[in-house]
């Protein structure tokens, strides 16, 4: 038998262990596997690589990609190129956090549990909600879980209304969950760059469990949450708001406008873009929905000696799950990245989060103005945060190819989402310098006018 670097057993060990077990061979242990279902010969996967060969192979694949550290990056659309404080990675690489399982044994998991409790506290504070769970797969999935929660909570409901200002992939994820639970996810049209309140009003009815809007929305614009909530007065319909948590450093908390559930993704805080995942969704609610919340939640308690400690609580999962009455099948959060974003939020602190949000606002508005000065039309009629949409004269795929050749990663093709040709969604985070933005504008004038 060959040696493999992660396997400690020697042939001698294996022989001794088989003797203790009383089996003649490993095949005897697999005796219940029917002959007809045995893998014949070797699996057809590539041969084993030594650590050095593996580094070269994977490094070679990584080297084929254009990265945000190689070229000035103007792509956002829900996932952002922010600077990650150096300490974040150093902490999450500690094996005690990195390799642990779900904190089933609280006596030896206090570190993880406390970190999640602190994260819940930060999310609740940013959103203004009473409480938050300890994380979901991502922001898109969090919207879908919120929709399921609403359908389960609002009696005799059979529908959610989804603004077209919500991230298109979040809209699609809600549609999938609606397909699963057999309810309807109906779209609410746009009025320019924001949700059409007249259309929303026309579509409201007794069977609507929730209205879902994004704040700031997919096009960067600040939605009029107060006006949406006003339409829901005297109804049982819940207001679900999806928010970039960085924007909440400067924008008013959704709780102030009557949000029942606030969701989003903490990727902007210390989590690499990683081609779309892993990131970490959050879900925060008012206390009346506390016992309906999916996934895990951590609570403070005391041990036998009265010492403060933390446990998973209000637990509805796995062994404890009310199997046939489940409203969610969640079994993991994204604990490591909840931790990462906690560290980042702690590094920013009370002042830093405002400064970071403001730096994004400054750069994005500088870029928008510079484009307007060159005759481009900015399509946002409402105020916007760190993204905006601009009308181009050419096909966006072609524009982005030309920009790539000139040394930039361009924006997102929002034509379909906006419902108009050649609509370009741009983002300028705190990482963009004035020179990069000026050069980008000049390049865009050349390739897209």
């Amino acid at each position, binding site marked *: 038998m060959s040696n493999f670097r992660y396997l400690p057993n020697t042939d001698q060990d294996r022989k001794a262990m088989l003797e203790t077990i009383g089996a003649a061979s490993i095949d005897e242990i697999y005796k219940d596997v029917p002959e007809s279902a045995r893998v014949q010969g070797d699996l057809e996967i590539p041969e084993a690589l030594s650590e050095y060969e593996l580094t070269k192979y994977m490094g070679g694949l990584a080297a084929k990609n254009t990265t945000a550290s190689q070229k000035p990056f103007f792509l956002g659309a829900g996932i952002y190129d922010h600077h990650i404080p150096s300490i974040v990675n150093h902490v999450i690489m500690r094996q005690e*956090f990195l*390799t642990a399982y779900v904190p089933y044994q609280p006596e030896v998991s206090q570190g993880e549990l406390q970190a999640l409790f602190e994260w819940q506290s930060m999310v609740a504070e940013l959103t203004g909600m009473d409480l938050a769970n300890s994380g979901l797969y991502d922001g898109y999935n969090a919207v879908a879980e919120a929709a399921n929660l609403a359908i389960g909570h609002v009696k005799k409901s059979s529908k959610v209304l989804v603004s077209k200002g919500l991230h298109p992939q979040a809209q699609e994820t809600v549609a999938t969950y609606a397909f699963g639970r057999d309810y309807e996810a109906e779209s609410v049209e746009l009025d320019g760059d924001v949700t059409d309140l007249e259309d929303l009003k026309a579509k409201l009815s007794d069977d609507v469990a929730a209205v879902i809007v994004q704040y700031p929305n997919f096009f960067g614009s600040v939605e009029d949450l107060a006006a949406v909530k006003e339409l829901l007065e005297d109804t049982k319909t819940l207001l679900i708001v999806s928010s970039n948590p960085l924007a909440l450093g400067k924008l008013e908390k959704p709780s102030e406008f009557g949000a029942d559930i606030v969701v989003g993704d903490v990727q902007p805080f210390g989590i690499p873009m990683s081609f779309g995942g892993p990131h970490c969704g959050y879900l925060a609610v008012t206390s009346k929905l506390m016992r309906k919340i999916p996934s895990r939640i*951590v609570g403070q308690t005391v041990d036998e000696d009265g010492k403060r400690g933390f446990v998973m609580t209000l637990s509805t999962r796995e062994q404890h799950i009310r199997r046939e009455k489940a409203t969610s099948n969640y079994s993991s959060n994204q604990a490591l990245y909840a931790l990462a974003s906690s560290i980042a939020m702690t590094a920013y602190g009370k002042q830093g989060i405002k400064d970071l949000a403001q730096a994004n606002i400054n750069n994005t508005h500088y870029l928008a103005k510079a484009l307007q000065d060159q005759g481009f039309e900015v399509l946002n009629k409402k105020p916007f945060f760190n993204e905006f949409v601009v009308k181009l004269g050419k096909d966006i795929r072609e524009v982005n190819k030309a920009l790539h050749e000139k040394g930039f990663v361009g924006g997102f093709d929002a034509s379909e989402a906006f419902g108009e040709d050649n609509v370009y969604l741009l983002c300028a985070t705190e990482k963009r310098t004035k020179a990069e933005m000026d050069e980008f504008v000049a390049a865009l004038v050349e390739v897209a006018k």
Partner: protein
Amino acid sequence: MILQDYDKLIFEISQDGHTGYDMPKSEVEEYDLTAEVGQYARKEDARLPEVSELQILRHYTALSNRNFGIESGPYPLGSCTMKYNPKINEDVAALDGFANIHPSQDPDTVQGALEVMYELQESLREIAKMDACTLQPAAGAHGELAAILAFKAYFEEIGEAEQRKVILIPDSAHGTNPATAVVAGFDTLEIPSTPEGIIDVEAVRAVVGPDTAGIMITQPSTAGLFERDAKEIVDIIHEAGGLCYMDGANMNAIMGVTAPGLLGFDAMHYNLHKTMSGPHGGGGPGSGAICVNDKLAKYLPGPNVVKNGDKFEFEMPSDSFGRVKGHFGNFGVNVRALTYIRAYGPKGIKQVAEDAVLNANYIRARVKDHFDAPFDNYNMNDFVLSLTRQKKENNVNAKDVGKRLLDYGIHAPTTYFPLIVEECLMVEPTETESKSDLDFVADIFIKIAEEIETDPELVRTAPHNTPVKRLDEAGAARKPLLTYWAALEAGKAE
């Protein structure tokens, strides 16, 4: 393990004006959005903690010292496959070319990322002996949901969705299985196990009919057994017009030996954070890739990667039911999974399974005379023990034994699961434990069995050496304190 006494919340060490971050210099004019948005300007600052860099590191280092990882000691948590997480996986996932790329970039500029996805899809397909793969689900339970939604899409297309509403679920199934079926809009029907701990074939035969949508089988089972009648059960379901799902949480026991495709299943999921070395991250991120046969391939979520000549492209399956999350799944976890599979190759992957099974049988053989070990058969990657006798005779239960193991620097096994075994401990050592560590674990189990006889109180009140003692879980649920702010208001934080 060093277990310090530090117990401050980050908010409690916060001091006005401290910060652990500074901004790049602003080169552009300040823009006053606040004035523009009126009532949408934030009035009260978010009270994030104010802490300097070294203080932050001391805080989290202290927290980490109150946490148990795989490198802290043996972690025989059944069904969770707590194997060693190779360090190189982390180095690779953190490479600029993987960490700093955006999913909406032009695919031509991220061909290396698409190649990673393609290679992983292909390897997973081959290990499962199935026809198609998607990497989109973020976790095992999420993969279950994606697969059962593919069942639903299939029945809709053949016009049997109204009729086929029932998913059969063995009583030894993972708790997420029935929850998944319900979230996908199906009813569930529980199938009992035989006294030998495997699914009762006759019970399946008795309930199948025109309303059967399918069955979800964990193979090997949560009782640590190979479901030897799986093929027959699959045939029964197929004859009735239903579909068969294999929960692959325990794939670690069978890779290279047998495969869901060879057993006739239509769909299966991997827990790549378990089987392909994760890591678990304290409860995520995971990755719940699923593989299906030709019958279901066109309904999968996506987009997934196809190869056209030398070029890799995204493609949405023709009749996809949609997406289950953003983008392409937990790419960073999938990078680690590919790195792991390439480190082992075909012979290594099979050796992983064989050693995982060997190690579990070895511990069981060493401890079985000291505890009740139900099911007189070889086990797969985990095995179960029952404390029913000790509970009756010594008033010591499964939870107590788990807690006592913590005192010896061993993480507790899974307790009270599967539900079909009373006072159950489920033990899974994995293949990366050496024989000497397995002997250490077995010796401690035996020692605790003796303590139960000689000093049951010691076990009953365990743990004694951990940073906190048993916690008041009932109190936590009765009067929930879920944030620092709530605790502060209740006078239970500073």
